[in-house]
């Protein structure tokens, strides 16, 4: 699987994930209040410096993740050049790139386990109210485990399709695939119940 995390360890890895997320929220909201092109350019420059600080490898892999934005950037720039409001177009584009780049920066420098710890802390009020957050944490773990399993099963189905038919796989393959998913769900649910299930013993 493609990894969205940084190829190198940075100093930001040691910063608390909650603080990084809170900072990101503030920064993204703040970006919408900056309407001066020069100020937006300065912000974008500062973001690029942040990307460059951990070194060349980090910069390259970080910029590669922004490639999906280029079509939008092109459309907006062409549109605003055409309507004669280039400055406004530049502000929109720079705000967009800065916001996404900052968010990616947090994802790149935060381990999955740290992110899940933040979720655990954020769901604490639910536990106080008596709602178990255990179900959520179990569900997160299940998705992480089941995605590669189901990907492998989907590839097996595609292979058996290819072995039997000269034509390309079509949408029809989704039916057996969804059936496999439903049956897997039955088995996993049985296994969970056999191991004590979701409800703690004393509550039964």
């Amino acid at each position: 699987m493609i990894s969205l995390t940084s190829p190198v360890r940075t100093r930001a890895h040691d910063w608390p994930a909650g603080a990084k997320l809170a900072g990101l929220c503030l920064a993204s909201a703040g970006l919408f209040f900056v309407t001066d092109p020069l100020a937006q350019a300065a912000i974008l420059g500062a973001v690029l410096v942040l990307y460059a600080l951990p070194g060349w490898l980090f910069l390259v892999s970080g910029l590669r993740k922004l490639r999906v934005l280029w079509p939008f950037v092109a459309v907006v720039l062409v549109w605003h050049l055409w309507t004669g409001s280039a400055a406004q177009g530049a502000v929109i584009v720079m705000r967009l790139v800065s916001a996404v780049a900052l968010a990616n920066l947090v994802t790149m420098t935060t381990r999955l386990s740290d992110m899940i710890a933040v979720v655990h802390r954020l769901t604490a009020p639910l536990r106080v109210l008596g709602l178990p957050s255990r179900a959520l944490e179990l569900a997160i773990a299940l998705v992480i485990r089941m995605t590669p399993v189901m990907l492998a099963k989907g590839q097996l189905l595609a292979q058996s399709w290819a072995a039997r038919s000269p034509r390309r796989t079509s949408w029809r393959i989704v039916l057996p695939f969804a059936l496999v998913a439903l049956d897997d769900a039955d088995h996993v649910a049985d296994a969970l119940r056999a191991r004590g299930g979701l409800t703690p013993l004393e509550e039964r």
Partner: protein
Amino acid sequence: MEKSLVLVAIFAALIAVLGLIPNLTLAFGVPITAQNLGVMLAGAVLGARRGGLAVLLFLLLVALGLPLLSGGRGGLGVFLSPSAGFLVGYPVAAFVIGLIVERWRSAPLGLVATLASLIGGILVTYACGVVGMMIALDKTAVEALGLVLIFIPGDVIKSVVAGLLTASLFKARPASVLSRSDDRG
């Protein structure tokens, strides 16, 4: 309870896998995938509440940094990109689709699921998606809609496919199609 939880998790994984299987890339580099087919199926098969939860769980994992969106995208950046509105629309779409399939029992399931997917998967999703693009790109609704119109024909086809699949799944595993089974356990 365990079965509901596992179905929600499995459908979150299904949405991810449908986005990862080989796909076509159309204009603007936005990949055409079966990912929103997964969203439609989650609503039509699991019903409003669980279908919406499955999509929310999927989005939570994307936000936590897993590259589960089509084209291997993920992380917090996608929620600030111009297409973020579509992501916000996904759980709402699954909820609306589930609600329609749960309530409208007088017509054949395949037809109901198709119409529900058209309403939820296109009307609701695009409404949210267009608002997202209006905010991120500072455009009017008409301009934003113009950028995404080319994707609608594909989504109409996916809605029909979602309807057919839901009907077939109900025939094969009636107990697992929670939107129609009365077993709420």
